[in-house]
Structure formats: C-alpha cells, structure tokens
C-alpha cells in the first residue's frame, strides 16, 4: 500500500508530500506520524507541501489536526512551502489553520524549529 515516507533528522521528523493526497493516504499519514513522534521522541515535525497543488476541506482539516496532535505529543509542527493557490483555497474554505506555524520553504522552516530563525 502507498505510504508517505517520514524521515528522521536528529530530534526532527521530516515529511514531504509529493503525491496527490487522497483521504485514505492522509489518514495513514496521521497514524504513522503520531506513532513515529512517540517512538522517536521527536521534538519537531516539518511537513513540506510544496508539491501539493490541490486541497479540499478534508486535507485542509487533516493538516490542522495533525499539527494539533503533534503539539499534544510535545512536538512543534511547521508546515512549509504552501502554494499560493492552496493558501487561497484554504482561506476561502474558512480553514485559516490558526494553530499551525508556517514557513516559506524547508530552510526557513528548519530555522524556525531549531530556533535559529530571525523571527
């Protein structure tokens, strides 16, 4: 079965979504990610969605939920590389993801997680 890989970099987990997200894939990712956070004792999660062109309300909510779950497990989540069209769609859907931290690209997201960002 198709799975989205989760990479570990020290205390951080890196998820890069490079395929079209469908609902089952999203649910699997949520399961995998929460298990990996607990197993690896991760302190930060970076989700790269720069290849994601299309979102619906389910995927939008799933991103928000995943971030909230990670926070409960004491891991900071940063969503990076959102496309303008995706951002507009999410806002129009009323999903402004208030609890999720965002960054423009992986580099800036990484800086945010490791605490070296100027922001």
């Amino acid at each position, binding site marked *: 079965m198709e799975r989205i890989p989760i990479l570990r970099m020290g205390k951080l987990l890196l998820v890069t979504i490079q395929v079209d997200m469908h609902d089952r894939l999203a649910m699997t990712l949520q399961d995998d990610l929460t298990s990996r956070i607990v197993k690896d004792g991760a302190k930060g999660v970076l989700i790269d969605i720069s290849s994601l062109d299309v979102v619906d309300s389910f995927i939008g909510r799933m991103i928000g939920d995943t971030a909230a779950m990670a926070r409960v497990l004491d891991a900071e989540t940063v*969503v*990076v*590389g*959102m*496309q*303008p069209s*995706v*951002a*507009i769609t*999410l*806002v*129009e859907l009323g999903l*402004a*993801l*208030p609890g999720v931290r*965002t*960054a*423009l*690209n992986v580099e*800036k*997201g990484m800086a945010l997680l490791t605490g070296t960002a*100027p*922001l």
Partner: protein
Amino acid sequence: MQTLGGTRLARLFNERQSELLGEWVAQQYAIASRRGGAAEAQLRNQFLQFVDLVCAALGSSEQVDFNTPTWDEVRNFLADVSGQRARQGFTPVETALFVFSLKEPLFARLRADLAADPALLAELTWTISKLFDAMGLYTTEVFQTSREQVIIRQQQELLELSTPVVQLLDGILALPLIGTLDSARTQVVMESLLQKIVETGAAIAIIDITGVPTVDTLVAQHLLKTVAAARLMGADCIISGIRPQIAQTIVHLGVNLQNVITKATLADAFIVALKRTGKSVLGGAPAAEAPGAPGPLRGNQFVGD
C-alpha cells in the same frame, strides 16, 4: 399582420430622396452641431449611404422583415454609425434619432401620394413603422453594447493598474492599496501578493490602506483573508495606514483585528518589519547599532542579518 410593400417603398425612397434628405439633414444637423461633431457633408454622406442600403434591401424582396439576412448590410452600417456616435458622446436617444427622424418626412410623403387609397396608406404606414422601430431599437442595442465594452475595458485596466507589489528591502514587501476593495479586486490583490512572496521569499508583507476610502465589514473581511493566506504561506502581514476615522469605524463595526499587527503609518510598519527580519538602517557611524535595534532613519546603509 403581414408587412408587404417592399418594392413600393423602395420606389418612394428613390423618387423622393432629395426631399427626404433635406428634411432629415436639417433635423440631424441640429443634434450633431450641439455635440460639436459631424459636419453637414458627412451627414449627407451617411444618409445617402443609408438610403442606398435600405433601398437595396427593400427592393430585393416584397416581404419586409428586418431580422432576415437581406438586411445584414443595413445592420452593419447602423452598427458602425451607432458605435461611432457612442464614442463621440451622443446619448442613446440622439443615436436612435438617426433612424427615427426619417419617419416624419416619410409619412408626410406617403400621405400626399396615397390620399386616394387609405387602405394601402395604412398598410405602408404600418410597414414603415415596424421597420424603423426595429432599426431604431437595433441602434440603441449596439450603442449599449459598445458602451459596455468601454466600461469592461476600463475595469480591467483599473484592476491591472491598482495592485502593485513593491519590494522595500530584501525580505520585506509593501502593497499600497488604492480605491475600494471588492471581491474581484481582493482576489487579484491576494494572488499577486502571494505570487510575489514566492518569487522574493519575503518574510514580511506590509499592506498599506492609506488609499482605501472606506473600510466596512466586507473590506475588513477581505483584508483578513489576505492576511490569513499570506500567513499560511509563511509570511507575516502588517496592516498600515489606518486613518483615525477608519480606526473608529473598525471598532464600531466590531471587526476583530486583534490577531493582525496594525500600525498607523507605513514608516512605523517598516520599522517593525526591519526589527522582525533582523535588519537595520544605520544613521551616523556604521556598526554602532546592534542588529535588531534600528537607528534613526537618516543614513542609507543597510545591514543584513
């Protein structure tokens, strides 16, 4: 009721052309001179062309129906005249009169010619009336269409003109908004801002609303949407240029801007942006100020992070 008598009318036009021309030009000249437009020679020319086309169309068939292909050339001609008059600033009424002012002289001739045959007179009067009404309405329709095209073109030009995104410094964008924000404009503003954020990798965008005349709940909602979308991309937004009246309106309307950084002037917003990005503008001795603590805005030396 049938509308026959095409050839009879064509003969009438041919025989009485010069008389009709005289009366028609007199009426049209009064209107045209008020607009400072068309010269008499040009009007005569237009009329002769018009009558020629109408005669050709009338002569080609006994049945008179403006909506048949026989009248295509007349329609094209009327569309030309109407479009030309729309551009010259004529009113729709004055444009329609190009056709309608021919009715009165025509009826007068018909009455004189056919006094002996009331039945034929009534029939031809009806034919002419129907035909000229159709032509008059057609000119109005074309007039309207050409005006609408002008309006649509202007709207598009306005949309393109009114949403510049400028880079103030590496990592800092400014978006000076001018004019009222509606849904269509917000969409364009949002798209161009987000696109520019991707291109420049900016961390902060300053939305300056000094040029926005009024802020109601809808405009505020549009602004908040833009801010939210930029945040999703990983850039922070500052709203600046809020005038005292607008601050009052926003609070009275109960619009919640708590989660957005707001500043009174673009200068204040720029200072915040500099602080956030760890850059500073130094005045006097360089390197005397630590990054993150911007000095007075006198010098012109920029220090990166």
